[in-house]
């Protein structure tokens, strides 16, 4: 019998929650192992290629549930490798939301002001900068001009993008081969590796059990490097402390599957899932009207026709992020690019009475694809999502060798959620159809349900044990030594892109996780600078001490 492999800290997942934990714990002196179910690709392996098996399908997952489909990262670096790098802070009212529980959802200790120092730290680490109008791609410019024409404001959104490196290729979902997108492969993860952390790709964690010394045993399967439907060897690693950061679509599933051995999970594990209130509208612009009404001209005979050009979302409308408005009526609108493949099937021909998403009218709509613009709504949903019994392995039944699977998440949007969506849909129509600029129609939920690229809240933090799986330090209730630092810990929808808030919360959780590790006999300290050497977190600690 071989001795069980041991480490101080085992981290599940290498996205924002996992990478930040790996860096701090390794820099503080702990022995850290990170298990990541996806592959490990460098920038020169990121393809501009739609073929099945290219990086476009290797590094993210599209999991279709019952009423909700989730698009997420599946690689070392997690969501940061496939995300669009838009990184706004959540507006202050978000932290006072009541949501579906009838009282404040967020822990009392967390407000926008309390989180600001941790936002600062992440902004320094990636880094994140304000984008400027003179570098905003055509689609963002057009959205801004349409907002202004409708008497609205619009902002170039802050982003973790080095625009000097960006070629505006719009292949962000396949990974950035120019290192313009500041993913975790360029900051926290190399810094963690430099401090001795070990990252093992293609290791899918299935469940946790306890060890006799009060720690945890992590059970994994090795995933085939090409066909993720095939699982190879099984193994275990014992750890004194576990940080779960597998993403809001997987972390609760791992805990559900662990319950028979670990003991009952808090009620909120796998409940209160939020799709961040996300919804999509697709507009088809009339190039002549864009020129006549807005005075826009690319100088090459086109006024717009720039859907393919750019770098994901660049311009956002924050006019409805008004704290005076009632809950469920606050949302942001963001111009967005989705590539073909996933990005066209749900689009509905604006004027079709029937068969709007396929058939003759849809094909006519596809002929105008360069004139498309997608508008992305992030609103306040009702945390309606519930995970059913976990699949035998992983978090979904994989259909394709990569990318596509069926998962156990069930989501039925409530009237509250629909109120926000309907208001946002009407707003988008008002802005974009004004004076004949475009024809617009929401994507349909009827095919794969609602659709989120920002799954949240399936194991949320909170003060109330009945409605939160984690305490405000991100420790799993009833299971000391297990922490959750990914999007599943965020209590609810944020009305903006959540990656920065997930990261700030992970940073905020780190001093407590380091203390817990020390209490479990791990020789580790807290206080590392950012991966780039900045020290704002020390000021944050001093302020709260």
């Amino acid at each position, binding site marked *: 019998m071989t001795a069980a492999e041991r480490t101080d800290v085992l981290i599940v997942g290498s996205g924002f929650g996992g990478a930040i934990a790996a860096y701090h714990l390794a820099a503080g002196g702990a022995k850290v192992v990170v298990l990541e179910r996806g592959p490990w690709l460098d920038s020169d392996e990121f393809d*501009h290629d739609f*073929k099945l098996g290219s990086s476009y399908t290797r590094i993210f997952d599209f999991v279709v549930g019952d009423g909700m489909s989730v698009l997420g990262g599946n690689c070392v670096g997690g969501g940061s490798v496939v995300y669009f790098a838009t990184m706004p*802070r959540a507006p202050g009212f978000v932290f006072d939301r009541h949501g579906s529980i009838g009282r404040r959802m967020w822990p009392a200790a967390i407000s926008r002001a309390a989180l600001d120092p941790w936002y600062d730290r992440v902004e320094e680490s990636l880094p*994140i900068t304000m984008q400027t109008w003179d570098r*905003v791609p055509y689609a963002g410019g057009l959205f801004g001009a349409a907002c202004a024409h409708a008497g609205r404001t619009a902002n170039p959104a802050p982003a973790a993008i080095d625009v000097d490196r960006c070629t505006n290729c719009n292949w962000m979902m396949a990974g950035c081969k120019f290192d313009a997108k500041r993913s975790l492969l360029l900051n926290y993860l190399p810094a963690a590796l430099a401090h001795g952390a070990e990252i093992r790709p293609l290791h899918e964690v299935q469940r946790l059990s306890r060890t006799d010394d009060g720690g945890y045993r992590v059970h994994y399967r090795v995933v085939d490097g090409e066909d993720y439907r095939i699982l190879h060897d099984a193994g275990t690693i014992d750890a004194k402390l576990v940080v779960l950061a597998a993403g809001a679509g997987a972390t609760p599933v791992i805990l559900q599957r662990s319950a028979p051995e670990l003991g009952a999970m808090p009620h909120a594990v796998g409940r209160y899932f939020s799709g961040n209130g996300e919804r999509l509208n697709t507009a088809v612009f009339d190039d002549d009207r864009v020129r006549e009404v807005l005075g826009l001209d690319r100088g090459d005979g086109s006024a717009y026709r720039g859907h393919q*050009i750019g770098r994901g979302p660049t311009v956002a409308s924050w006019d409805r992020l008004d704290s005076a408005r009632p809950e469920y009526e606050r949302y942001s609108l963001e111009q967005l690019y989705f590539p073909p493949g996933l990005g066209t099937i749900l689009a509905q021909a604006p004027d079709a009475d029937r068969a709007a998403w396929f058939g003759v009218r849809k094909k006519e709509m596809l002929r105008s694809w360069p004139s498309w613009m997608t508008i992305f709504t992030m609103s306040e949903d009702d945390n309606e999502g519930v995970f059913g019994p976990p699949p035998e392995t992983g978090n979904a039944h994989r259909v394709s*060798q990569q990318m596509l699977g069926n998962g156990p998440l069930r989501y039925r949007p409530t009237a509250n959620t629909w109120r926000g969506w309907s208001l946002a849909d009407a707003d988008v129509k008002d802005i974009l159809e004004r004076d004949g600029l475009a024809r617009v129609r929401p994507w349909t939920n009827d095919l794969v349900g609602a659709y989120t690229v920002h799954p949240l809240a399936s194991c949320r933090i909170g003060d109330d044990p009945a409605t939160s799986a984690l305490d405000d330090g991100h420790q799993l209730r009833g299971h000391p030594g297990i922490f959750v630092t990914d999007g599943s810990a965020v209590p609810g929808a944020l009305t903006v892109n959540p990656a920065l808030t997930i990261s700030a919360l992970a940073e905020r959780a780190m001093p407590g996780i380091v203390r817990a590790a020390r209490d479990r006999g791990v020789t580790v300290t807290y206080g590392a600078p950012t991966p780039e050497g900045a020290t704002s977190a020390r000021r944050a600690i001093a302020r709260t001490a």
Partner: protein
Amino acid sequence: MDAALTLTIEAFADTIIPGEKRFPGDRAVAGAAEGGGAVAAGALRLLTDPAGGIAPALDSLAVALNDHAARYAEGRAVPLDGDVPAFVALPFAHRTALVEELTAWEHPEHEMWVGLALFSNMAFDSAAHLHTEEAFATGHPGLLTLGYTPPDPDGVWRFPQFTYGRQLAPPHPGTTVTGSPS
């Protein structure tokens, strides 16, 4: 793959993204739209690619689709030509109506028909069965219909001209110094 199965699956793909007939007497492709559709784009090749995961189900999907088509035709007194499978024999407007019925949210088989539609669409809009450079080199009808711009000679996309270069809207008055909502 037998001819009936091929005809049935191609007729379904053609209903999702219709195209012009490949030859006189083409039965699978109804000819409902100009230019190549999902079939010409390679839907059959993508659907039978083991990487996609849908290939093992195609036989049973074709049987079920033809059963649905026969029932549909009987219920609406649509005469069917017995030379081809029932779905292939349906006039295009009826194929469309049947696919609408099968992919409706409340239909018990919704998930499998949406899956078939997803892959049919993907063959057209992204040529997921081909390297994208190869798709351009062979004149893939889907990418051409979309107006997807070809890459630079090294197979990589770059757009040096990308911006109107000027401020086009006032910022939200609550914007913080870091550029975020307050």
